[in-house]
């Protein structure tokens, strides 16, 4: 804030020109925080890659499993965790068997968190055994093992060999769900949710060697890197960043409404997306105000 800036006769615009940046910070803070506290969901229209993944999972042959690979760490949780939650809800709402594994060791906690959240949501509304979502019957959490190559190849042969015990310590062989979830043949689609290059490894090992169908959920920054794989059909669909997560949540909410599951669930991605939208709008408004001020001052000077 140099003195020259305020030397001109201070009208509103010139004052805005030299506004203390802390006002900008305050506005950003408010517009991001308020939608998180008091969600006003903006309903995003799903884009093609998101719709593709949704309808692929929605129309998989009965009995085929959805496998989610948690390949990210807590630092990208805000963007990626909502994807896992939405995918789990979709699978449980449509009665798909679900398998969850983690390629990132720090992803274990994230997988566990998402599973306990979503299973609790479903079981809270369950009245019969059929309605409930039960560990070992409707879903399995295999946990983490390394190296990735061994996992990706081994799952093509026998998943129970790769993960002899699940995350909770039960022998995977003994779980009823594993009877129909032997290897990639029983997997309808495997969705890798990652902030790294892991989706590429899944293509190289899982897909080119076993032909497993893949989908991916990635951060907004890496979206451009993965578009080519969606266009070539190597990924049946893709969720990119919070926007992708929010769009998928919308589709899942519509599906659940159709299945009479209007439980008023919170959608972290959609909520965060309203924060995103308001932050983007605020920044754009700042740019516009700055320019109006700029032209107003310039006219005054000339």
């Amino acid at each position, binding site marked *: 804030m140099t003195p020259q800036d305020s030397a001109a006769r201070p009208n509103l615009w010139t004052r805005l020109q030299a506004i203390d940046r802390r006002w900008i910070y305050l506005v950003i803070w408010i517009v991001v925080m308020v939608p998180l506290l008091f969600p006003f969901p903006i309903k995003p229209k799903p884009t093609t890659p998101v719709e593709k993944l949704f309808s692929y999972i929605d129309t998989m042959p009965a009995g085929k499993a959805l496998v989610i690979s948690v390949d990210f760490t807590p630092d990208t949780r805000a963007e990626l965790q909502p994807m896992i939650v939405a995918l789990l809800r979709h699978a449980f709402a449509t009665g798909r068997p679900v398998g969850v594994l983690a390629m990132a060791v720090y992803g274990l906690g994230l997988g566990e968190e998402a599973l306990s959240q979503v299973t609790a949501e479903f079981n809270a509304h369950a009245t019969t055994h059929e309605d409930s979502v039960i560990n070992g019957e409707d879903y399995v959490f295999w946990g983490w093992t390394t190296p990735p190559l061994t996992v990706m190849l081994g799952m093509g*042969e026998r998943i129970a060999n790769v993960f002899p015990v699940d995350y909770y310590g039960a022998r995977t062989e003994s779980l009823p769900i594993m009877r129909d979830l032997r290897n990639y043949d029983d997997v309808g689609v495997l969705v890798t949710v990652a902030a790294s290059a892991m989706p590429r490894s899944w293509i190289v090992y899982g897909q080119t*060697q076993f032909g497993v169908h893949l989908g991916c959920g990635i951060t907004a920054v890496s979206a451009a890197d993965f578009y080519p794989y969606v266009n070539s059909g190597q990924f049946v669909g893709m969720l990119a960043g919070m926007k992708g997560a929010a769009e998928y949540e919308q589709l899942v909410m519509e599906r659940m409404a159709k299945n009479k599951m209007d439980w008023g669930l919170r959608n972290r991605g959609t909520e965060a997306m309203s924060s995103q939208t308001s932050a983007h709008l605020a920044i754009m408004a700042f740019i516009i105000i700055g320019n109006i001020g700029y032209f107003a001052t310039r006219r005054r000077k000339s």
Partner: protein
Amino acid sequence: MLSCLVALLLCSISPPGNVAARDVPNDEGGNISVTWTRSPDTSVTSYRLLRQSEGAGEWETLGFVGRLATQYTDDAAANGRRYQYRVIAASPVETAESEPSEFAVASAQWYDTDTLPALVGTAILVFVFLYFINRAKRDRNLFIRRISGLDHVEEALGRATEMGRPTLYVPGLSSIADVATIASLNILGEVAKRTAKYGTPLIVPNTDPIVYTVAREIVKESYTSAGRPDAFTQDIVFFVTDQQFAYAAAVDGIMTREKPATNFLIGMFFAESLILAETGAATGAIQIAGTDAVAQLPFFITACDYTLIGEELYAASAYLSREPLLLGATKAQDYSKAIIVGLILLATLLALVANVSVNRFL
């Protein structure tokens, strides 16, 4: 007829065929590539690779690959030894074994033929550079156009001197292996000569321990050559931490507490670029930035007064020092760019007019 039937009953999946093994070319040896044609049966889930070294009499298992694979690289072959391979198709209930392959031998090569374009390209560029550097020894009047960021170095340092406030120099956040860091250290040498001359305090926080040692030597040398060895003190160049954001936090602290009048942010930067540049802008410092990290340039452009874009960073030490040999190299860079543009035009012309794919040769 009967034997056929027995075979069918005993072995209902058919084995993979045409198993072939050959040395992987252009490597340091140790690798043999095995190829086969897949078993036609859909129940196959994977293929298992077996290897036998000549005379060993025993087949060892190497590993397995998915049912769609038709190739496997054995990366544990001893050079000069003869190996043969078998591929076994496996379904959940049974297996079928192929005929063994012919023998193959892994060997190391002294030249990687895949690098031929790089070799030719390197040779041409080295030649161009040596020619111009040599010519620069005779020609004392090589011209370099104005680079606005560098024209303002003196002015920015002068301002710091007038205001009696220090100058901050951030040599990037990468290691010495990053050539941008070296370019930055060269500029640091020139900046330090001037701060020594003007008697302006200089602050050089570092994030790479090796860069720290080099930066320290360079600044010391600059102070000596400016005739002020006494002005060089221990706390001009110091190491902070090798953690990106801890470093950013510390430099932000320095910027707001010491209030340098001039900030140089030159070298390799990552996401912290705008954290540094925006804090510097908020303290009212004149900021000169320079990086070849294309992803960070937009942030420096928006938050700094002057930004050296990409190659300008590499022309800077020639520009500031006016050393003929360095100017010659800058001239060579220009001619190399002309060659590249020429090549793009030529290759496009060939591709469009004669339908010759130049990419085949690259």
